[in-house]
């Protein structure tokens, strides 16, 4: 089945801006999130954290806590059952955010490390008891900042199994050529914390050796695997349920200690346990984007063509993980045509909680650095920033020479220029005004890999002519429920009203983590393949019955449309009739789609886009206002313009927050987060965001999958902070290379 063959008919629902199928459940409160599941005899837990960043726990006095009415038990490393390794072992899969299982020893590696779990009848009792624990520490001086951690620096070869270092040609020699235009600057980004609205939470219940977990997760299958490893039970004994996620942005993509502690607590208490991670704990215990220091060096000839790119990134990681924020590999290494590139990735270790994937991990800070540097190069060359990028357009992937599956970046620039009115921009900084306000226009390229990972789905067609489609994927609030309903409907030739799509249950056919913007590409293909199998099954049912109008029809002539299985010459049979003819209550078809085929391996698959940003700044009271924004993206086929647009709106908004506000601060003496709440950690409010105009260009990606769709969850944030910073430069003449661009930096 090819995309071209599907094009004629797979357009009824796919591509339509239909409303979210889960919208009503969400706005009425009917949608149940992890923390809202209440198995019988549910007890409540509070996790207690280390207040020191390095050293060890000498003792924990639990006497006063244990006397609080309602307290059931207090677990510490002294009395807790030991968990098995989270990192290795069978079953494989999942990814623990911290390599060390909770309560595996006395040693403290970071402030916020869990050291006790209090379980009580009511949550306020647990909280009260937690406050009464007396912890005696042996304290050591922690290493907290990148600049203090040089002794631990390494250049790791791999990140998540993939090469993370890149070099081609001779960048050093090209940078030393006299007469080239050069930019050599350092860009820094701070710690950022995901802060989804929904707090991470786990409700765990054991029945004998079987564990059910309601968990706020981006990966029900991964969570099942890691829990099975931790507790030494077969994965078939573990069920992970997560019908809704109130935002993840990566902090629910790995499995974090609270999930294991809830299950451990349920085992110890002999009853179900709920553990909700508090907002403050979200700053230490479910990851963050680590700080980066990125040294950029660009060289170009007078024609603007790049002769050298050097992009050395340093990110910090924690003693309890090897997480790397890979800033250059999916940005500077492949964004522009340039024969000489040196893209080293450096890692240092500090006594800070584990960092993790956060929306466009690597690409987000990486595009801030390279896209600001490109802007600086354009200024040095006195060239329009769009023109500079066009002159360096990469016609093939410069990092591996592969052709692009579908790029269309030039169209993104062109449409963006038109919709924004970029031609009216005057190049000189501070040259544009709105009354007394400085006006700045900046732009940047957006880029994100087009990932597709193994996925499966099952379709169950019943006698009422309805289809129930299931996959163990997740909806983070992105619209997954909706687009997979649309894909299912078209693949089966049914109206969307006759399709129910279910997700968020590890008992469903396996699907990947909702991360890396892969789910749209992965799960839609599984549905399409399952529908193809369903068609074959229905075809053989029809063929077997001599009275059937499709008797003798060739399988390749059959199609599913208008609720019927039909051939070109015959109106065919209604699906409900075919189910009845099967003699069963339902007909099921399941498909598993493997990782890569020979075709996808030959191509470089990426999404591209361009951001255009207007800022207005009061020169005396310089809070940056983003007043107008244009984004143009190529994400392959757009399955639902409404949900896709929302993903770009969200990505751009988060990028504006990254550019102007977000910044997690650790106290430089204790290592504890200082601003661990939503009052002290500002993210944009509505009043901070002007109009955002989103367009999509491009055709279905002919390589990635049948529908030609790539995910859109992350590309919107890439390049966004650079577009703001470039606009700020244009408005003020001030180049701020250290995020966030708060008013104090522009005074």
């Amino acid at each position: 089945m090819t995309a071209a063959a599907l094009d004629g008919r797979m357009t009824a629902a796919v591509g339509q801006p239909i409303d979210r199928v889960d919208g009503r459940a969400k706005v009425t409160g009917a949608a149940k999130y992890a923390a809202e599941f209440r198995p019988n005899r549910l007890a409540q837990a509070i996790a207690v954290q280390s207040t020191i960043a390095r050293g060890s726990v000498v003792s924990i006095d639990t006497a006063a806590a244990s006397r609080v009415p309602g307290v059931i038990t207090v677990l510490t490393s002294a009395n807790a059952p030991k968990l098995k390794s989270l990192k290795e072992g069978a079953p494989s899969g999942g990814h623990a955010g911290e390599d060390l299982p909770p309560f595996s020893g006395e040693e403290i590696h970071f402030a916020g490390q869990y050291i006790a779990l209090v379980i009580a009848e009511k949550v306020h009792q647990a909280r009260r008891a937690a406050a009464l624990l007396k912890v005696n520490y042996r304290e050591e001086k922690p290493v907290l900042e990148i600049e203090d951690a040089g002794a631990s620096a390494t250049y790791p070869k791999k990140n998540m199994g993939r090469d993370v270092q890149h070099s081609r040609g001779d960048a050093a020699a090209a940078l030393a050529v006299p007469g080239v235009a050069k930019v050599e600057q350092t860009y820094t980004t701070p710690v950022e914390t995901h802060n989804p609205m929904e707090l991470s939470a786990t409700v765990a219940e054991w029945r004998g050796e079987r564990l059910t977990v309601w968990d706020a997760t981006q990966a029900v299958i991964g969570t099942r695997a890691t829990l099975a490893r931790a507790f030494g039970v077969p994965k078939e004994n573990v069920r992970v349920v997560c019908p809704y996620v109130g935002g993840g942005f990566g902090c629910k993509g790995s499995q974090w200690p609270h999930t294991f502690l809830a299950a451990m607590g349920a085992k110890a208490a002999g009853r179900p346990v709920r553990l909700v991670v508090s907002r403050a704990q979200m700053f230490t215990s479910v990851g963050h984007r680590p700080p980066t220091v990125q040294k950029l060096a660009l060289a170009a000839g007078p024609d603007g063509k790049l002769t050298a790119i050097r992009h050395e990134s340093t990110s910090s990681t924690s003693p309890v993980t090897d997480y790397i924020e890979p800033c250059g590999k999916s940005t500077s290494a492949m964004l522009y045509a340039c024969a000489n590139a040196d893209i080293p990735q450096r890692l240092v270790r500090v006594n800070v909680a584990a960092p993790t994937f956060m929306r466009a991990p690597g690409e987000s800070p990486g595009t801030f650095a390279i896209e600001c540097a490109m802007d600086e190069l354009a200024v040095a060359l006195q060239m329009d920033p769009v023109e500079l990028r066009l002159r360096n357009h990469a016609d093939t992937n410069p990092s591996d020479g592969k052709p692009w599956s579908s790029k269309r970046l030039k169209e993104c620039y062109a449409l963006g220029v038109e919709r924004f009115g970029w031609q009216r921009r005057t190049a000189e900084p501070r040259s544009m005004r709105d009354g007394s306000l400085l006006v700045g226009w900046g732009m940047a390229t957006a880029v994100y890999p087009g990932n597709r990972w193994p996925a499966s789905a099952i379709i169950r067609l019943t006698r009422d002519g309805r289809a129930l489609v299931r996959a163990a994927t997740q909806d983070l609030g992105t619209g997954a429920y909706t687009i997979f309903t649309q894909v299912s409907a078209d693949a089966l030739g049914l109206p969307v009203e006759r399709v129910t799509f279910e997700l968020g249950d590890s008992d469903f056919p396996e699907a990947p983590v909702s991360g890396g913007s892969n789910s749209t590409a992965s799960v839609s293909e599984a549905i399409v393949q399952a529908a193809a199998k369903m068609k074959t099954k229905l075809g053989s049912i029809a063929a077997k019955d001599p009275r059937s109008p499709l008797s003798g029809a060739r399988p390749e002539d059959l199609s599913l449309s208008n609720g019927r299985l039909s051939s070109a010459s015959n109106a065919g049979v209604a699906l409900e009739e075919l189910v009845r003819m099967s003699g069963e209550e339902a007909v099921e078809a399941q498909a598993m789609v493997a990782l890569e085929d020979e075709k996808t391996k030959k191509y470089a698959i990426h999404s591209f886009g361009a951001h255009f940003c207007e800022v207005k700044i009061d020169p005396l009271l310089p809070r940056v206002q983003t007043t107008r924004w244009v984004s143009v993206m190529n994400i392959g086929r757009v399955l639902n313009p409404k949900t896709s647009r929302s993903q770009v709106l969200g990505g751009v908004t988060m990028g504006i927050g990254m550019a102007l506000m977000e910044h997690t601060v650790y106290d430089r003496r204790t290592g504890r987060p200082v601003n661990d709440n939503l009052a002290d950690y500002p993210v944009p409010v509505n009043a901070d965001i002007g109009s955002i105009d989103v367009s999509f260009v491009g055709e279905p990606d002919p390589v990635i999958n049948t529908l030609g769709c790539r995910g859109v969850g992350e590309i919107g944030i890439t390049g966004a902070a650079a577009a703001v910073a470039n606009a700020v430069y244009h408005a003020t003449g001030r180049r701020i290379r250290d995020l966030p661009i708060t008013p104090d930096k522009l005074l």
Partner: protein
Amino acid sequence: MTPFTYSRASSPKEAVAAVSRDPRAAFLGGGTTIVDLMQLEVVHPGRLVDINTLDLTRIEPLKGGGIRVGALVRNSDLAKDPVIRRRYPVLSEAILAGASAQIRNMATTGGNLLQRTRCQYFRDVHSPCNKREPGSGCAALDGYNRIHALLGTSDKCIATFPGDMPVALAALGGVVRTRREDGTERQIPLSDFYVSYGDDPARETVLAHGELITAVDLPGDGWLARSHYLKMRDRASYEFALASAAVALDVAGGTIRQARVALGGIATKPWRSAEAEKALMGATAGEAAWKAAAEAALSGARPRQHNAFKVELAKRTLARALATAAALSVA
């Protein structure tokens, strides 16, 4: 949260008596500060006396032209009151620049005067804090102190008063009315209501334990209609001030006859600046006067590592607020 008893008072007298006789008791108004701090284990009242049903919810004219605002008038109601908006725009603007609609719907006039600092170390019970635990030290002095105070600080505490409405009330010259245990009332000008930190930053106001705020009186001066509140912060809304200014001007023929200046976000209390007012009085309205007032207002600033930028930011905020007020067309 430490267990506590809850009761509802049916009269100011009963409320004052209930809190006065129990040293661990506290009034419960809108609850927007105290409940938050109880959850964080920062404060541990053993008894909460709910005053929400008391008849202190009126905004009424006073003889002599002033206005009395009942202690339980909600922020939202005060901000939208047409008389307040017309005669004291700075007050309405200050309230609307603070918090969110939901919080303003709960927060009361009396309670808002007693809002506690947002110093992160005050709110973190594992950090030393002379305000929370007298004598334990101050983690903010050499910690992350971007939001901390420039004025009114001591070597014991640099915590900023975070509110907006009280800054406007300070500029307006409001008078706090209270009821005491012995049944007497007293009237405390805003300028005397807050105490300097000195050696005991735990003490923030002159109120005695159990003394209940019943109202705030606003003066009747017509020129206060030429008043304005300007607030600077990292985002456009729903954030505490990095610097704010509440100003009122009486200008005739281009000469400033009277001026009121109070600053927020940069001081340990709503900071009425006599220095700035002196610089303005008798001066010609214009940039030179605004700048002189700004310099005077910040002359005593004592910045720490991360808040030095607020000196310049506060100056510019005040100068802009004055310029804006001077340009108002006031009926």
